[in-house]
């Protein structure tokens, strides 16, 4: 991408008979990628420097005396590149044979199996049979501390992990020790990488099964995992990630590339906080509390009853929201509260004592706000209360005598008598708690992992996420539940999709105006800066 506003000089070359124009300074490997031709490589990674040492991306360039490493060779005008010529293919086959000389071929018990570049490349272009009769050298496995386990025998010595720790984490704890046949990735003796807040990324960028996650060890086969694009909900950075799901449980989180938010990385803090999405204690059906006796019900009956109750007249409303809820959910809550005559909405947000930036890409940082959508709540006019633990701040509401609506907040720190004195207490959430059980109407909502929606991150980027899990029982997205209620009160339309719910949200907040799911796309879109009215 050009840093100045001028159009960068364009270079036209031919790769495997197809002409392509790319900006000057592009490498052959990147130009080929633009044509959809992925030249095999290990050591090259788009987020790191390229040492050109794996020798797998060598391609034939007409006029060059020998094969050129495509990851560092810049394109030239009129260049003719052959990536599939006999010479290039023969060389890849040869290099791959060397890679297998000491590889243990333990694919049946290797976590990387199925998403392994060594498997893929050898499958595509490797020799049918190995010729090596020598015993393989054996390293065994090494605990690198933290979440990381190292299987030295599987390593292809691409040094991506070393370069990540040097260039991105800027915590050079990994190195190549020894040399030649005995060279191996290691730390300073027993030092390990424990405590390095971004170390988990070295598992992602390892092209083979050398670096694996202890958390994921032998948990699932790669081909059994469904990959669902989503947004990390663990802080307000809004890293683009993928859910890897099996058996309707999130098995792990992996970063998804978004050069403007998180490049190719994510922090270990976010990476390891997914178990809550798999919680099985859930509110699964609407519960109507009739004189202290909770009665499970179905949606139409419950909404009918609740609507009837609301039409009898409503005391002044106060509401509690959650910064873990999507923009659509929060906007639907705002709609409902407005439909009931308006009232203040508060939310509680846990806050860390410091940020944890990634030194090599400081735009990525584990933010202080440990929830994905505090900014969205703020845009929708909600007020943050409580302490940095995300607790407290609701003492007044606990004994509120008007209408009380709670969305998403589990109220885990509150007494079971919360809301006892409320004239009407509506709870919309996913997890049961003593304070929620007092609700006159307890309505099951999906978690963000089970629904479509958007979050607004710390810098005001609205980013979409997609459902990764099946919702349990009768749980429905809060925007649908609250939207249906609000629609009954106002006579407006019921949102039938998250996209429509977002359109309704945009009606409430000028920041969202003009944005649609289409324009947000998979990369996100920055909110409109609120315009100060003249004289206001």
């Amino acid at each position, binding site marked *: 991408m050009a840093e100045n506003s001028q159009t960068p000089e364009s270079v036209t070359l031919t790769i495997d008979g197809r002409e392509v124009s790319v900006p000057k300074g592009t490498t052959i490997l990147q130009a080929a990628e633009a044509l959809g031709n992925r030249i095999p490589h290990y050591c090259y990674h788009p987020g790191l420097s390229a040492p050109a040492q794996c020798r797998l991306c060598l391609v034939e360039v007409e006029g060059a005396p020998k094969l050129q490493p495509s990851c560092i060779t810049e394109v030239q005008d009129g260049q003719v590149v052959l990536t599939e010529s006999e010479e290039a293919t023969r060389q890849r086959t040869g290099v791959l044979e060397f890679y297998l000389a000491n590889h243990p071929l333990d694919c049946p018990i290797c976590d990387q199996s199925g998403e392994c570049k060594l498997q893929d490349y050898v499958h595509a272009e490797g020799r049918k049979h190995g010729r090596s009769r020598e015993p393989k050298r054996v390293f065994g496995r090494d605990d690198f501390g933290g979440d990381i386990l190292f299987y030295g025998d599987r390593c292809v010595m691409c040094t991506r992990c070393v370069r990540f720790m040097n260039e991105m984490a800027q915590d*050079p*704890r*990994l*190195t*190549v*020790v*020894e*040399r030649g046949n005995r060279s191996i990735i*290691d*730390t*300073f*003796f027993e*030092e390990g990488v424990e405590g390095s807040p971004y170390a988990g990324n070295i598992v992602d960028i390892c092209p083979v099964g050398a670096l694996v996650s202890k958390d994921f060890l032998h948990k699932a086969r790669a081909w059994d995992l469904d990959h669902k694009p989503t947004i990390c909900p663990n802080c307000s950075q809004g890293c683009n990630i993928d859910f890897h799901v099996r058996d309707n449980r999130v098995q792990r989180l992996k970063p998804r590339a978004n050069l403007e938010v998180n490049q190719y990385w994510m922090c270990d803090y976010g990476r390891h906080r997914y178990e809550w999405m798999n919680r099985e204690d859930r509110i699964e059906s609407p519960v109507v509390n009739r004189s202290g006796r909770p009665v499970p019900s179905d949606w139409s009956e419950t909404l009918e009853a609740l609507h009837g109750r609301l039409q009898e007249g409503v005391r002044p409303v106060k509401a509690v929201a959650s910064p873990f809820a999507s923009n659509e959910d929060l906007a639907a809550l705002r709609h409902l509260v407005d439909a009931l005559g308006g009232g203040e909405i508060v939310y509680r947000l846990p806050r860390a004592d410091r940020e944890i930036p990634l030194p090599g890409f400081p735009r990525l940082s584990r933010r202080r706000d440990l929830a994905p959508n505090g900014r969205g709540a703020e845009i929708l006019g909600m007020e943050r209360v409580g302490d940095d633990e995300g607790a407290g701040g609701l003492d007044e509401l606990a004994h509120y005598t008007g209408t009380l609506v709670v969305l998403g907040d589990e109220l885990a720190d509150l007494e079971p008598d919360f809301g006892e004195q409320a004239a009407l207490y509506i709870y919309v959430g996913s997890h049961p708690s003593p304070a929620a059980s007092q609700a006159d109407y307890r309505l099951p909502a999906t978690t963000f992992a089970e629904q479509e929606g958007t979050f607004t991150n710390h810098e005001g980027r609205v980013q979409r996420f997609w459902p990764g899990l099946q919702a349990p029982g009768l749980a429905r997205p809060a925007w649908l539940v609250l939207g249906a209620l609000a629609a009954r009160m106002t006579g407006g339309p019921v949102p039938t999709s998250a996209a429509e719910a977002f359109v309704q949200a945009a009606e409430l907040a000028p920041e969202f105006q003009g944005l649609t799911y289409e324009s947000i796309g998979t990369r996100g879109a920055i909110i409109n800066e609120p315009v100060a009215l003249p004289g206001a």
Partner: protein
Amino acid sequence: MSDETTERAPFRNPGWAGNTGEFDLSEDEVRGRSYVGDHAPEGGHASRVPTVPYMLPEKDPEAPLFEGPYRERFEKILSRYPNRRAALLPVLNLAQELRGHVSPETMSEVAGILDLSDAYVRGVATFYTMYNKRPVGRYLIQVCTNVSCNLCGGDEVLAAFLEHTGTEAGEISDDGLFTVMEVECLAACGFATAVQINARYFENVTPDDVPAILDRLREEAS
């Protein structure tokens, strides 16, 4: 000892290459006593500050990094490189010269001094085989078993050294004097089998020479 050199008649290999029997010259006369293990006098220009890439018999594993004349040499070494990282090899040499081997603690200390990461220094120190990662005896006996020496019986010479020192390869002998190692080419193929003992080359070594060489070293050490 210099007087006795010529008297060692049966000792076919006095430890120097010129011993062809054609000349009536002693080793000392050929290359001088100061040839081995000596380095240029302290002081002088930074470019002349030597660091020895081989073992010295005198060493102190606890020696501080770096004090007195060593400090001076260290500073001069730094002065001839554009940055501290570039000075790593000679500084490791200096540390090994003082301490006899490069222990994990030494790597860490050197990393601290040069503002590098411990892991990086370990990577460099383990890449180069002439840094001893473990303690060695007063005399580090490196027997070449690469092609030329192998053809001329290098394996037998190695076996003889191991037998007469009573050690396994890499171990320190009980008297603390010897560590025997197998090494690759010492660039003395014309005088196979070549053996490097600390800074000194012993050439044309046969298994029969080994006891005499060890005796000579024991004598030196006493």
